[in-house]
């Protein structure tokens, strides 16, 4: 094999605030937030589905807002408060939205669930959903191929009624 002589730009030091902890990484600029979380911080709860912002499996909260971590460069997320599925349970107690997914049987295979949960929390934080149709529209960035939508909508409805998000 020919020796690869392409010179890659150097990695740089990037500090991410994830789930309340400051984490320093040496990463290349093209590392997405999703890859930084999964491959470098080993927080594998956030899932890689399509890697193109279509499925929502990679949804995390940045400063309380839901985003697709696959379409964001980690280097651009410094100094922001990043919350992943691993950061939701507090003192051994599930986050109310996590508990609601269990109570409403709102998942089957579970692959989309971390993204769905972060997205429901983002939905409540945004405060714009007033009707069931609003919920369906504003949750359209999270695909569930098992088709658990009916119960996911129930979770979102309950979360919106409860309102309190931490």
């Amino acid at each position: 094999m020919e020796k690869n002589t392409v010179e890659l730009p150097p990695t740089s030091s990037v500090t991410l605030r994830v789930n309340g902890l400051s984490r320093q990484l040496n990463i290349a600029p093209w590392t997405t937030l999703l890859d930084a979380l999964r491959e470098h911080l080993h927080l594998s709860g956030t899932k890689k589905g399509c890697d193109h912002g279509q499925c929502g499996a990679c949804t995390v909260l940045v400063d309380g807002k839901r985003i697709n971590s696959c379409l964001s460069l980690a280097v651009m997320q410094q100094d922001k408060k990043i919350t992943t599925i691993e950061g939701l349970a507090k003192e051994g107690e599930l986050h109310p939205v996590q508990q609601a997914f269990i109570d409403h049987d709102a998942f089957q295979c579970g692959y989309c669930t971390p993204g769905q949960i972060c997205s429901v929390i983002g939905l409540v934080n945004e405060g714009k959903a007033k009707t069931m149709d609003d919920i369906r529209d504003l949750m359209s960035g999270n695909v569930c191929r098992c088709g658990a939508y009916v119960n996911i909508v129930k979770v979102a409805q309950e979360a919106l009624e409860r309102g309190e998000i931490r």
Partner: protein
Amino acid sequence: MRPFTYTKAADVNAAVQEVSTHEGAKFIAGGTNLLDLMKIDVMRPAHLIDVTHIAHKTIEENDKGGLRIGALVTNNDTAYNELVEKRYPLLSHAILAGATAQLRNVATDGGNLLQRTRCYYFYDTATPCNKREPGSGCSAIKGYNRDLAILGTSEHCIATHPSDMAVALAALDASIHVTGKDGERTIPILDFHRLPGDTPHIDTNLKEDELITSIDLPAKGFPEHYTYLKLRDRASYAFALVSVAAALELDGTTIKEARIALGGVAHKPWRKPEAEAILQGKAATTENFREVAEAYLEGAKGYGDNDFKIELAKRAIVRALEQALKMEAAS
């Protein structure tokens, strides 16, 4: 993704300087479309300049009674802004008809204008595409073209511009404020995007070294009679087959002014002021709306799979104007 270098620009001038001195450099803000296209090797910038740390993140009333929207305001923050909701609800509705909450939370208004077409062949690097590889040919004209353009096309490209926001901006006569190494200038929204002609690889009239700094809305926002009607294959998170931004100013049942802009039908938001003028001083009737619709689609050309869009667009214009008249704003 191909390797690239990255820097953060401290202000507009630094960003403009940097882009002029780096070959293959691109600005990045939200990055939702750019990174997607970089992952599939359609866009290959050698250097990214992060512009998210410069100013232009606010929405403020300007000295002409209109609104100045900073280019870095996100799509969601714009759609849910109180002034926009109250004075330019057409813009709010159009923005919320596009993408998903996750994307709108990150995608900026400047970036929304610069998003690339969603033509399947532009995305498929295994097929020829004049927009992606100039001179390679257009796979869409004789290929599967259900989603593609019917107005302003050329023998080189039938791509559409995918933005909903830009369609509302076209109806509202917005202007785009930009800064380049030769200074600042203002581009009317209708001159911002281009028709494909024989250079379909160039989407807009923005120069390589220019950065969008704001979007300016004139005072008139048509908050009383407007609609954004978006027809698509599913009710959420799908691009428009045809969309219509319609706004009316009425004097009783007589039309003082009508604005109509179409999305999903051309390489740019489609406005035809001479056709809009047909409605001026006329009664707001379905018959008159149909007359405008016919004028709007004059010269439209189908490519097989998308032939249906010509009649669909006409009916969408009529329905949008009827909705605007009765104030059924939801699409």
